[in-house]
């Protein structure tokens, strides 16, 4: 029977994980909702964030890498968007496959540049070690991760709620037809959303690197929870992504106590149950994508 | 008691309401369509006619009200069930199977084919009942000689005819036509008029139309929809003279005559 301290630790781990999931899923969902595009390269861009930070860190320090690496990923995202553009208006399959191809190619590029082996990244020196509060001993780094994730989520929330572009994205987040009808410069908005969404993946990659270690396939592992979070939370809902992410993170974190390897299966059971109960996800809205 | 009161409507609605967000499109619509008649549903743009059709055929669900077809309450039935009960429609914006030939379009609509929908083995052309029925429909709509032309290659007028043909092929008891003459030039319009005129025996037709000549000369009964309610109803002569209808249509009528 796990003790209280262990329980709380796993719970906190789950929350931190959940926040990361939410961050990745949100970026993924923005692209999904606005452009009706499943961005398969989201995972590999997450990985690239970590790798870029790894290379930049010796020159600009950890914070510098945290700022620059996502920027690099965002630029790459913009480049990708130029390619994806040709698939707009056609069967959504084509956009999906394009990003799929991009994911394959980029994963190989990572192998070419950084080699096939993994890197263990240690947390930056200023947050190394543990934080003690009474009976609880928790990794300082994870607390930093959680803080950063919350700040970023808040930033995105502010962007969506308070800015005109955000309002349009929210409107478009589950009904692209409407946005088009409003005459908004769709091209520029797509650029923005793609860059933002991919940059979010990049940031997540930077801060997750010490937790998850860095290898070329880490991207594929990171993108799969994103799918589940979006399905659980519902397409087009900010809070859906956040709650979905937290739910997924804590459930899989806690199930680690009980059934060590079953946590992934639990994820899927969770998704299935939610789909049965709420076919559009917890907070999803009815869209043209249903009958 | 007038003879009309004794006839049971084949299709009727009671208090049909539909709103999108805050915008009320239909506000308590009561309609009754007699069998074996051609009835027209007219009204200015935005009056709610196509929404009405969508409710009747099951592509939209009403917020309130009921729909009865042949005496049966069909309000919650999905569109495919209603079609199988004998209600077929054509679409205002052409909705054909564009890669299918004329023959394939019609054939897949025939009940004899539909009954074998889950037949995974028989070659489709071997369902002779469906082939025969399709051939008859193609003759009826005047597209003989074009059976093997893909729908996307037909002229607009021919596509309009095919659109109706597909609805007809379903052997409906009630045929709903949504603006069948939309965008047609003079000659295809003639063909269409003749076609519709031929059809009225054994078949109830409800037409949404803007072309007043078409409506006034062909229909037995007209219902006028304006801003979500029926403002007038009756035979063409009565409707033509009603002040409300003229008001509602002022701009439209002038435009129709000018054409």
């Amino acid at each position, binding site marked *: 029977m796990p003790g209280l301290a262990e329980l709380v630790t796993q719970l906190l781990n789950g929350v931190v994980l959940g926040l990361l999931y939410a961050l990745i899923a949100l970026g993924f969902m923005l692209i999904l909702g606005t452009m009706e595009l499943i961005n398969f390269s989201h995972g590999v861009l997450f990985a690239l964030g970590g790798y870029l930070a790894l290379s930049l860190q010796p020159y600009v320090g950890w914070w510098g890498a945290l700022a620059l690496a996502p920027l690099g990923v965002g630029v790459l995202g913009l480049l990708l968007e130029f390619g994806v553009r040709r698939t707009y208006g056609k069967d959504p*399959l084509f956009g999906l496959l394009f990003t799929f191809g991009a994911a*394959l*190619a980029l994963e190989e590029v990572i192998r070419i540049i950084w080699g096939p082996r993994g890197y263990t990244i240690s947390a930056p020196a200023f947050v190394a070690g543990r934080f003690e509060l009474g009976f609880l001993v928790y990794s300082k780094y994870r607390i930093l991760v959680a803080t950063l994730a919350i700040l970023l989520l808040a930033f995105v929330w502010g962007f969506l709620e308070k800015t005109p572009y955000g309002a349009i994205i929210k409107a478009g987040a589950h009904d692209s037809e409407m946005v088009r009808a409003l005459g908004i410069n769709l091209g520029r908005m797509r650029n923005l959303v793609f860059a933002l969404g991919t940059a979010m993946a990049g940031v997540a990659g930077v801060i997750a690197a010490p937790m998850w270690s860095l290898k070329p396939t880490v991207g594929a592992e990171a993108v799969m929870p994103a799918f589940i979070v979006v399905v659980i939370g519902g397409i087009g809902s900010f809070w859906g992504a956040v709650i979905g992410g937290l739910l997924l993170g804590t459930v899989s974190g806690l199930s680690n106590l009980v059934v060590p390897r079953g946590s992934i299966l639990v994820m899927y059971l969770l998704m299935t149950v939610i789909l049965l109960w709420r076919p559009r996800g917890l907070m999803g809205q009815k869209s043209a994508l249903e009958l | 008691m007038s003879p009309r009161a004794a006839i049971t409507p084949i299709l009727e609605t009671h208090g049909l309401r539909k709103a999108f967000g805050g915008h009320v499109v239909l506000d308590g619509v009561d309609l009754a369509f007699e069998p074996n008649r051609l009835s027209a549903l007219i009204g200015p743009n935005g009056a709610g006619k196509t929404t009405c059709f969508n409710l009747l055929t099951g592509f939209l669900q009403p917020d309130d009200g009921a729909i009865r077809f042949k005496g049966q309450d069909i309000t919650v039935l999905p569109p495919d069930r209603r079609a199988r009960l004998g209600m077929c429609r054509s679409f205002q914006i052409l909705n054909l199977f564009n890669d299918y030939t004329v023959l394939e379009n019609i054939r897949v609509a025939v009940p004899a084919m539909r009954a074998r929908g889950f037949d995974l083995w028989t070659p489709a052309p071997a369902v002779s009942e469906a082939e025969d029925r399709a051939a008859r429909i193609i003759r009826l709509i005047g597209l003989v000689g074009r059976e093997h032309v893909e729908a*996307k290659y037909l002229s607009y007028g021919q596509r309009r005819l095919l659109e109706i043909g597909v609805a007809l092929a379903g052997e409906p008891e009630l045929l709903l036509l949504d603006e069948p003459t939309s965008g047609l030039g003079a000659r295809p319009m003639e063909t269409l008029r003749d076609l519709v005129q031929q059809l009225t025996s054994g078949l109830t037709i409800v037409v949404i139309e803007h072309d007043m000549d078409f409506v006034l000369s062909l229909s037995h009964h007209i219902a006028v929809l304006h801003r979500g309610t029926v403002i007038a109803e009756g035979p063409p002569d009565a409707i033509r003279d009603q002040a409300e209808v003229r008001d509602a249509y002022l701009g439209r009528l002038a435009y129709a005559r000018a054409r």
Partner: protein
Amino acid sequence: MRRFLERWTPPPMLGMFALFLGLPVVLPLLGYTYLGTEIMIWAIFALGYNLLLGYTGLPAFGHGAFFGVGGYLLGMSQKWWTGGLALPLLIGVVGTMLCAAVVGLFVVRKRGIYFALLTIAFGVMFWFMVFVLDTWTGGEDGLTGINRLSVLGFALRDNIPFYYFVYAFFVVSTIALWRIVSSPFGQVIRAIKQSETRARALGYDTPRYKWVVFTLTGAFAGLAGGLASLARFGAFAEPMSLHQSGNVVLMCLIGGGFASFYGPVLGVAVFLVLREVFSTLTDHWMLLYGLLFMGVILFMPEGILGLIQRVRRPTTFHDTRAAQAASGEGIPAAPPAPEQSGPR
């Protein structure tokens, strides 16, 4: 006679069968013995899958899972439940079909991107289950020790008899799929792809049809997966990954699955041959692969056969326009968009 051929094995199909019949003679000369078998196995998978993708227009992206499940079910049957060859294969097919039927219930009411998303999610779920249930499936090492046994006195351990064993299934599957596609059912699903709304308006319960197609593709995937595990003497999780599910889609696309019944077979052949070629060129062949993917999507989305069809089609169009001009009909329709062509 001609009608008989058209209904069972149209000339192009006979040509294809003849080609594959003679392949084992040619391939060893090029140094490949296994490639032909692999092409046929994936062709079964892809042809079945194209029923869903090319014919019904449903972009499922998790079918690699069903391929894998077929292999594992065969392996588990043979090792622990029934032994033998025929029964495990049957269990593989039927079991996978049941899995597809269950997943289908969840996904058929969704469209487009949401549909794809759900199929991905379920597909990956099966993949993970393989690792969780590792006492049964062998986990990362896979389920090894599968025997090909023998059929009609021929030991299938040898490549040539096994090739023709697979060939038999290839022929039967192709003919079965051709019948399906030519049947009333085939007419309905193609109609659903072109306009689901209209199909419903005609009285078709479209979700049910989609469910049936989904389930059928599961059966073919299970068959292919079973044959694959026989081929490799083991079942592995690798074909179930997201990666591989994308591959079957690309195969269908490259060959022209949207335009032709045979597209998937051509696509499989091109795909597997190119993979061989690329991997001899460089260790980083995955990069070339990904670039190929992107290139095909951008520049040749209708696939090889679609491209060929498009080049040949203008003749028909001009004939029609001439006929229209002669009869004095109304405005000619706009030229067709190639992506919308359905398979013939």
